[in-house]
């Protein structure tokens, strides 16, 4: 991911859709322990510099109780005639094998008249900071990858189910907040295709006191709970394990059990152009929107959602998890048709069309070498035959007028938008777009 030094919108995005990638100054910070950038002048302070103190981290209790209250306050603002102030920031933490977590943080910004010192990315050549040491004028003293990750990482299989559950639940929460707070529409035809046919046996049920396998994490959690109740632990003080009491019923075991295996009701394909032209903001816009869509569908289908992630430049490939989907980049050309073809291949190969509500979301900056859509349009038509909705987001570079990219032109020309108004939607946004606009876009794509 590519973030310039003093770009404000980017900063906000960093909180909203940011991942484990570090911003440039953090990267430098890692290398020599010091922050970079002119503005960092004011980040220096005695407590950290001399005494190696760290900013405290909020306790989970603090955050949980605050969220509902804050949203309530936000609702009141609207009633009083003021715009909402709370943003639900999303942090995507990387994890292996699709176990990345989406963490919700209520954030806000106090708006004032301030000077805009952002520079346009491509023009950023001006002196961005100071430095010292050897080196001729013009000499390169350091490099930093434009994108954090190049290419795809291979996801290993997950360990335990706890982690997997966590991402789901907080992405689910985000979906709920989106539905409630932003009044996104509810889907009409949900819940049609539930089947109860399959059973599996697994060590998933938990049992207190006895069982086959001790669940250490759950046990520990119970012990902590008990001891909070007893008053042995309070607040953020350090925990002294030797003082903890362990009750027999704190022990949690896993036991073998029969599981109903619900079929997922929705299959969502996320398609993203990751060619060179997508570098930077278009990628962030697309990915931020896809996080929101994913969370929202998760809520709508009550977690019965399966996702597939497809990246494309001139060729399309499937990647195993959202993190890889989010962070990969190459510098190739663009053939949009290849991605849609891959969707068709996957759907045909496992005959998904019969069992699932299928959604396809595609994010692009609008470039396509196949400028008249002669390869793309037939593939889209094929998908339209079985899918619930195709949503295309075009995140355009801000220079020039909106709505003049290859993808947009040929989709409009093909007449598909008028022919299947219920099944295909197109939304064009500016690359510097805000959260509000993105959510508006989701409404457009999904309603």
């Amino acid at each position: 991911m590519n973030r310039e030094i003093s770009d404000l919108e980017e900063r906000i995005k960093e909180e909203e859709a940011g991942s484990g990638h570090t911003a440039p100054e953090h990267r430098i910070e890692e290398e020599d322990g010091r922050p970079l950038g002119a503005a960092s002048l004011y980040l220096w302070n005695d407590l950290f510099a001399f005494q190696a103190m760290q900013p405290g981290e909020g306790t989970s209790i603090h955050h949980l109780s605050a969220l509902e209250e804050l949203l309530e306050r936000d609702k009141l603002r609207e009633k009083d005639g003021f715009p909402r102030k709370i943003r639900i920031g999303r942090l995507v933490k990387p994890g292996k094998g699709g176990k990345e977590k989406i963490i919700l943080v209520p954030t806000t910004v106090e708006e004032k008249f301030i000077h805009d010192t952002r520079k346009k990315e491509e023009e950023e050549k001006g002196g961005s900071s100071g430095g010292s040491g050897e080196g001729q004028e013009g000499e390169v003293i350091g490099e930093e990858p434009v994108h954090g990750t190049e290419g795809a990482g291979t996801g290993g299989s997950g360990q335990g189910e706890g982690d997997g559950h966590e991402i789901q639940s907080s992405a689910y929460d985000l979906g709920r907040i989106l539905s409630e707070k932003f009044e996104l529409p509810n889907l009409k035809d949900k819940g049609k295709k539930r089947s109860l046919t399959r059973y599996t046996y697994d060590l998933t049920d938990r049992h207190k006191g006895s069982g086959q396998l001790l669940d250490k994490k759950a046990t520990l959690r119970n012990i902590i709970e008990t001891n909070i109740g007893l008053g042995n632990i309070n607040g953020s003080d350090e925990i002294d394990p030797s003082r903890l009491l362990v009750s027999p019923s704190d022990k949690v075991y896993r036991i073998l059990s029969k599981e109903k295996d619900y079929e997922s009701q929705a299959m969502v394909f996320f398609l993203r152009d990751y060619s060179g032209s997508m570098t930077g903001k278009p990628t962030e816009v697309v990915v931020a929107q896809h996080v929101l869509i994913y969370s929202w569908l998760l809520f709508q289908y009550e977690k019965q959602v399966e996702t597939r992630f497809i990246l494309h430049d001139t060729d399309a490939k499937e990647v195993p998890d959202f993190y890889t989907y989010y962070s990969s980049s190459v510098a190739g050309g663009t053939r949009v048709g290849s991605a849609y073809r891959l969707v068709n291949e996957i759907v045909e190969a496992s005959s998904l069309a019969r069992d699932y509500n299928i959604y396809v979301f595609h994010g692009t900056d609008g470039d396509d070498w196949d400028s008249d859509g002669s390869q793309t349009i037939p593939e889209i038509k094929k998908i339209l035959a079985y899918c619930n909705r195709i949503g295309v987001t075009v995140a355009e570079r801000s220079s020039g007028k909106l709505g003049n990219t290859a993808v947009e032109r040929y989709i409009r020309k093909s007449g598909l938008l008028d022919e299947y108004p219920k099944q295909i939607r197109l939304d064009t946004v500016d690359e510097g777009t805000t959260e509000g606009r993105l959510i508006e876009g989701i409404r457009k794509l999904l309603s």
Partner: protein
Amino acid sequence: MELINQHTKQIMEGCKERAREAGLRFQDETLEYIVTNKDLLELTPKNMIPTLYDYWVHDVEVLREKGRYELYPNNPYETVINTRPAISFYNDNNPDWLNVMIFYHVLAHIDFFQNNLFFKDTWDEDFAGQALSDKRSIVMLRSEKGRWVDYVIEFSRAIDNLVGFYSELSEANAPPEIRASSKLDFYFDIFLQSIREVKLHEYLKEIDRYNDTLHQFGEVAESVFFSDVTRKYPEFEALFDKHKKREKESSKDLFQYLQENSPFLRKEENRWMNTILQIVRKTSLFFQPQIRTKILNEGWASYWHEKLFLRDDRIKGNEVAFARINALVTALPRVGINPYALGMRLFSHIEELADKGKLSYEFQRIRNARRREDFDKDTQEGSDRVFSVRDNYSDFTFINTFIDQDFVDRHKLFVVGRRLNQAKGVWEYFVQSRDAGQYKQMLLDALYHPPHVEINEAQTWENCLYLNHVFEGKPLVKEFIANTMLGISYLWGGTVKLETSEAEVEAREPVPTSPYYPPPPPAEKGHVFRRILYTMRDRKLTRTVL
């Protein structure tokens, strides 16, 4: 939070003695607290001032963006609080030698707070105590008015970077004899020159006449002089009154203007809002000198902690540990600006120059590099000079006056540039320039500088407030304009207009800038700055190009 123990306090008192001997001047009483992580959590949203008023934004993760310092004129992790007595914060488990080092650093900060002229308005204040009483007033208001208190806090905070710090300061620092003669100033500087446009010889004659009157009549000279003036120019008194009134109005910041003129705030039922405006304004003014002296203040403290620590006889044997921490704090980073390192070196540089008598016109006139290097008058003025810099300078004047090519060369400083290498897919950081002028400019650009927004009274009437953003080559952050104006229009109780400049793609006539500010840099290719008028009416924002 608890106070440091007696043993550590004794160390502190020892440090105070030694610092005083070295020439630092500060109040005797100080308070030192131990802070834990949990304390920090509660203190940082309140800028380490335990008694600051409560506000819901403090409970939310505020976006920690890089431009944060532009929004908040204060450091969330301030270690020394400029109040009476000064408060400072410490980690629980610092070894004694480290405490000695930090104590010296802290004492130099306190010395700085209590002597630098930019802090003059805070010299007689117990800010922590005032904050506590403000906090109580807000709690009381909240129990009556509920969430509307928070709206007023929010809208006041939205303009708290526009407080008239310098106008307050110039009033506080102006010697009385200058203040008394505003009539003379007006007569000689404006009336004769701009209104009557008299010839030079007449002007000089008037000065002579004034000097003669002064000799003859002493104390009452001014009234005698002006009685003659009014005979000659009957309109003078009226013009002067008008000028005085305008002068008074224009030196007011937005807060003061709203408080005095807003039809909404003047209503009986809204009087309570003035209290909040007053509190927010006062809090912001309190932090203003701090952010404007970051490099100077940290440089001063680092300069002294090093000097005094090495002299201190109590902690022999910890030199290596000291060197390590000291280097961590004051080493010049390869990339980035470290205010400690830069300020400290600049102070040493000034001291050295002054010791050799190089801060003189005589030295400046020398062009020969060899002679410049060998120049040494052995004036030994270094110590006096650094103290006078500590008294009279701010970051801007400090950097603008003392960064020269010798300094940049000596410490191998350079401006770092960043460019995209498309082929490799990386950002490259490179040495852009080793020129002192460019280095200075880069530093100046990095300094805190809120926009200057004036009230255009000519276009302001009962229901419409007209604000003028004086353009200095940097546009405002567009995304923030709407909500900020919404707040002002709430406090004003009517329409608010803001005139500002924005970059446009199409070529148009360039915008004339105010003569008091440097001309704007040429806009990015194809971009031209144009004057834009934003209007906030009935909570709707419209934008028109002027």
